[in-house]
């Protein structure tokens, strides 16, 4: 039987990023994989080595942080495919990174936020300033919200797991007039939604779970389609092909887009979002798909402050 | 109480045994105290007095023996039981919380203070009681800010207010000025008058003769003798305690004072001076005075533990006022601090380590950049022999020695360096007559080798015994200096009491 394992950088119950990693792993079971995971592993190199030695054909690391250790371990296990989830580097022959195009979705959220804001002030809360996929989403958000005429403020917090701190950050932004909040956090994402709920402003989340907290205020979620991204990869690995590259999914790689805006199952937006706005966002997606629209946020776009 | 039977004694202790490892601190001691009696408990250092009283008060458990108060056996072995039975104790080291005020210390653990503290009421009671016993005390003062004499008043008030039937005082006079001693003895008499019993531990025979009704002498953990006070002389008591003569030493001077070795000019700092004085080689300058009049400031400034605000300290012509402690030691200055528990010794370190405390960077203790453990042990053994430090060996922690032997470590270390100047502060504090005599003899021996000596003590007799000249400190300065010794007692008394705190 084929085996796949994942290393989670945090705790699988963070109700966000690591929980997603856990879900990814589970999504491989229907593809015929026996699975294992390990959380908070203090010894990533050793863990990778251990799983590879146990005969796991796919060993995933659920963060860009694992690429480094993978590059060290991979040469000793040429038959194992190492995959860094949301990394952005690969190394031939068997270390690859997969991610989705944070910039495209960040941009859509920016346009949505600007359209839904009455104060024309919108804001985002993120962690780990300078990490590429954070820069992509935060920068995409700023570029497109600003283009739609909103004033944008971005805050970074110390710990993507600290919901109380995220909530404080969101409350401070709301206090300064922002009435649509977004962000890319892990366990802390809940804090954003709680703050929005308390102050009755719109917010975007990272999963249906968060829609349930405040159904009338969550506009949409970026729901990541790791099963989709992994599906083809895993099947190919099973077939004996190894990758050593960075694969980024997005609207331009349809049908697998890597992520999707979803309010609830099969429903992209909260009913409060006017049809015209939905149409504009769909047009945007089409633009990304056709290549007519391109976006490449820089660190300056993702800067903190306004 | 029926007339037919003699009333049970206030306290009876029978067959008390307390062992510390192999040491039998108490080895079958019987003790009886009657109501309205002051019992003097005597014995040389380490004879087991404090241990016996700690057993009585429940501070430490006994290995064997029985304790009865008014014929009723003590229920348990904790201080709370002893206090319930009407026993109060003033410990050799005070049991006060320094960071708290007097009234808080009095209320601590006292049910009458109320679950919700009745602060004002207690303060009033303290004022009232301190008037009654002539012990002036501000209930709101912080204990840390009080001189030792005042702290002792707090301890006494605690006992008095709780209406203790039996009061135990473990060396209460060691740190008191003569006036304060007289006051304390007055308080004890008053308590006796009220029908209370008192156990009074002291090394000072005149106090015993003055106030006690009866004495019990311990030696080596056993009762060596007991007598009504009228039936003994001080010399007999001393004989009973140590089995030899312990009168003041008369070490014949082998040479006259020489050149000036220590010259202090305009020395001043907070609570000190300005002071100007000289001490010659082979001369002892005794400094008397009530504690808290600048003695600690003077000795610590001389020793380098406090910075002088102004003035100079020249030793053999070398200016040391701004030199470090280490430089002063190198220049030949020795210092015996009063506070041997915290400063003079590191009680948890071995005897050997304590002997090298101030000389660890020099031969024989150091060899190049390293210590020489072998030589340390050898040297320590030699010093223990020379200075009669009684302990199983040089590796024993200093804390396990009796007070007298601990002090001998300090003496050995400071004198063995053959210093040019010795600054000694309360050098015989808490020592029995034998040990006191030993220390004084050694200091005089150093004098005869030509060292300059500054001998500071609140014990006037001791100062008079040893000094060539006596200065009396008051308010940080010298109230007067005399070379007349006892002949000038009247003036000295005036100087001391004139500005006594």
């Amino acid at each position, binding site marked *: 039987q084929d085996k796949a394992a994942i290393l989670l950088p945090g705790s699988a119950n963070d109700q966000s990023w690591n929980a997603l990693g856990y879900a990814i792993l589970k999504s491989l079971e229907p593809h015929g994989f026996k699975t294992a995971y390990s959380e908070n592993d203090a010894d990533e190199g050793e863990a990778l080595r251990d799983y590879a030695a146990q005969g796991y054909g796919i060993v995933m690391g659920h963060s860009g942080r694992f690429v480094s250790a993978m590059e060290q371990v991979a040469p000793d296990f040429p038959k194992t495919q190492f995959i860094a989830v949301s990394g952005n580097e690969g190394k031939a022959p068997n270390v690859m990174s997969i991610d989705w195009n944070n910039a495209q979705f960040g941009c859509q959220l920016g346009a949505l936020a600007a359209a839904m804001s009455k104060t024309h002030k919108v804001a985002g809360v993120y962690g780990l300033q300078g990490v590429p996929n954070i820069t992509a989403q935060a920068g995409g958000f700023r570029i497109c919200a600003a283009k739609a005429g909103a004033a944008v403020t971005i*805050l970074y917090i110390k710990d993507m*797991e600290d919901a109380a701190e995220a909530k404080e950050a969101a409350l*401070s932004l709301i206090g300064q007039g922002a009435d649509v909040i977004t962000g890319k956090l892990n366990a802390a994402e809940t804090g954003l939604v709680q703050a929005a709920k308390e102050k009755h402003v719109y917010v975007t989340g990272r999963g249906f779970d968060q829609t*349930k907290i405040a159904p009338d205020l969550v506009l949409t979620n970026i729901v990541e389609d790791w099963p989709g991204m992994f599906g083809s990869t895993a099947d190919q690995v099973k077939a004996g092909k190894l990758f050593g590259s960075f694969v980024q999914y997005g609207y331009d790689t349809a049908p697998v887009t890597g992520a999707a805006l979803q309010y609830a199952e099969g429903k992209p937006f909260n009913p409060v979002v006017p049809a015209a706005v939905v149409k504009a966002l769909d047009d945007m997606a089409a633009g990304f798909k056709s290549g007519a629209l391109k976006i490449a946020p820089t660190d300056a776009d993702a800067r903190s402050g306004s | 109480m029926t007339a037919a039977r003699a009333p049970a004694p206030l306290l009876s202790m029978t067959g008390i045994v307390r062992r510390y490892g192999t040491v039998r601190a108490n080895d079958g001691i019987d003790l009886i105290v009657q109501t309205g009696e002051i019992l003097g408990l005597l014995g040389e250092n380490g004879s087991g007095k404090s241990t016996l009283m700690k057993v009585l008060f429940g501070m430490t458990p006994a290995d064997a023996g029985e304790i009865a108060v008014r014929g009723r056996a003590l229920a348990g072995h904790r201080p709370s039981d002893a206090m319930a039975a009407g026993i109060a104790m003033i410990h050799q080291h005070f049991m006060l919380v320094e960071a708290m005020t007097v009234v808080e210390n009095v209320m601590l653990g006292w049910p009458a203070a109320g679950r919700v503290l009745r602060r004002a009421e207690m303060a009033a009671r303290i004022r009232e009681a301190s008037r009654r016993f002539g012990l002036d005390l501000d209930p709101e003062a912080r204990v840390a800010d009080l001189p030792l004499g005042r702290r002792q008043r707090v301890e006494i008030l605690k006992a008095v207010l709780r209406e203790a039937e039996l009061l135990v005082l473990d060396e209460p006079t060691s740190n008191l000025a003569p006036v304060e001693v007289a006051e304390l003895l007055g308080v004890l008499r008053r308590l006796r008058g009220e029908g209370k019993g008192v156990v009074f531990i002291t090394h000072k025979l005149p106090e015993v003769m003055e106030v006690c009704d009866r004495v019990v002498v311990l030696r080596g953990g056993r009762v060596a003798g007991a007598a009504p006070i009228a039936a003994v002389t001080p010399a007999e008591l001393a004989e009973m305690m140590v089995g030899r003569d312990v009168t003041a030493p008369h070490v014949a001077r082998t040479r006259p004072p020489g050149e000036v070795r220590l010259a202090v000019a305009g020395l001043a700092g907070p609570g000190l001076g300005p002071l100007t004085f000289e001490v010659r080689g082979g001369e002892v300058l005794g400094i008397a005075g009530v504690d808290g009049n600048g003695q600690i400031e003077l000795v610590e400034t001389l020793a380098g533990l406090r910075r002088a605000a102004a003035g100079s300290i020249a030793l053999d012509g070398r200016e040391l006022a701004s030199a470090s402690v280490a430089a002063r030691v190198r220049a030949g200055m020795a210092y015996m601090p009063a506070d041997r528990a915290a400063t003079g010794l590191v009680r948890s370190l071995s005897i050997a380590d304590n002997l090298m405390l101030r000389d660890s960077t020099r031969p024989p203790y150091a060899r190049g950049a390293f210590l020489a453990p072998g030589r340390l042990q050898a040297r320590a053994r030699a010093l223990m022999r020379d200075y009669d430090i009684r302990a199983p060996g040089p590796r024993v922690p200093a804390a396990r020695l009796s007070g007298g032997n601990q002090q001998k470590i300090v003496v050995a270390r400071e004198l063995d360096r053959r210093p040019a100047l010795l600054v000694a502060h309360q050098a015989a504090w808490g020592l029995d007559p034998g040990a006191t005599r030993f220390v004084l003899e050694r200091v005089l021996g150093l004098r005869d080798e030509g060292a300059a000596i500054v001998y500071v003590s609140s014990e006037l007799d001791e100062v008079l015994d040893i000094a060539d000249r006596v200065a009396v400190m008051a308010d940080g300065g010298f109230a007067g200096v005399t070379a007349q010794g006892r002949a000038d007692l009247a003036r000295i008394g005036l100087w001391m009491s004139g500005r006594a705190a």
Partner: protein
Amino acid sequence: MIDLLAAAIRIATPLLFAALGGILSERAGVFAVGLEGMMLAGAFAAAIGTWASASAAWGIVLALVAGAATGLVVAVVAVRYRADHMVTGLTANIMVAGLTSYLLRVLAGGGRPVAIRLAPLAPWPIPGLADIPVLGPLLFDLPPLTYLAIFACLALHLFLGRTQAGLTLRATGENPEALFAAGGDPLRVRVRAVVACGAVAGLGGAVLSLQQVGTFTDGMTGGRGYLALASLIVARWSPPAAALACLAFGAAQAFELRLQGSGVPLSSYAVEMAPYLIALAVLAGLGRSARLPAAIGQPLP
């Protein structure tokens, strides 16, 4: 400004509970390095208790119990067995972090990670007072545990200063031998103080999980126990001063978020140092006056 103060109060609330607990422990002579673990245990128990019983009251009770249990572990090892306070506290923190995370999976998730969702405790406006402009929303429209924190602060202040038990506790931290000689039992006092410390700090954890975010996530206290420790030292072990110190920490953090939002040309990492640097600057400004309880960290004789 009001917004900043409101944020400061929110951030300060969990810190204050922990700091009050720490004051109990340190005043009794036991270093309160285990606050982090006690808070975390409280946060966990509050969430899981509320989730299991559907009643926040039970959650709060369980938070008290779990905090106290952590305190008991520290007390047994550090007080009864005289291990070092500092290391016992640090180790307890490690253990509680593991245990909460493990129990969450085992008790609630059947070995799987699980998400607990609770509605955060709503504010309790005090009728009449809550409508006062400015002060009303700031002080009289707060969630229940915040009122409790203010009450606990005053109660602890009175307890320490005005009662025999408080006097006894302080004496244990200053000179346990003196208390023993006065008929007290320093061992019992210390054990009780540390257990109480755990219970109160546990409430601080409950504030986080129950009142602020409505869920428990692993390690959600995120170092707040250590910040509480810093606050109580800044506050010189006085409850009212601890409230001020926690508010100051809260204000510093709230300020940091607003500073970032104002677009200073610094990276977020540099700006996030602000609360710690401000704390250091305040401490340095206060200078040498800090005097630890004299017998803190020392084993009983």
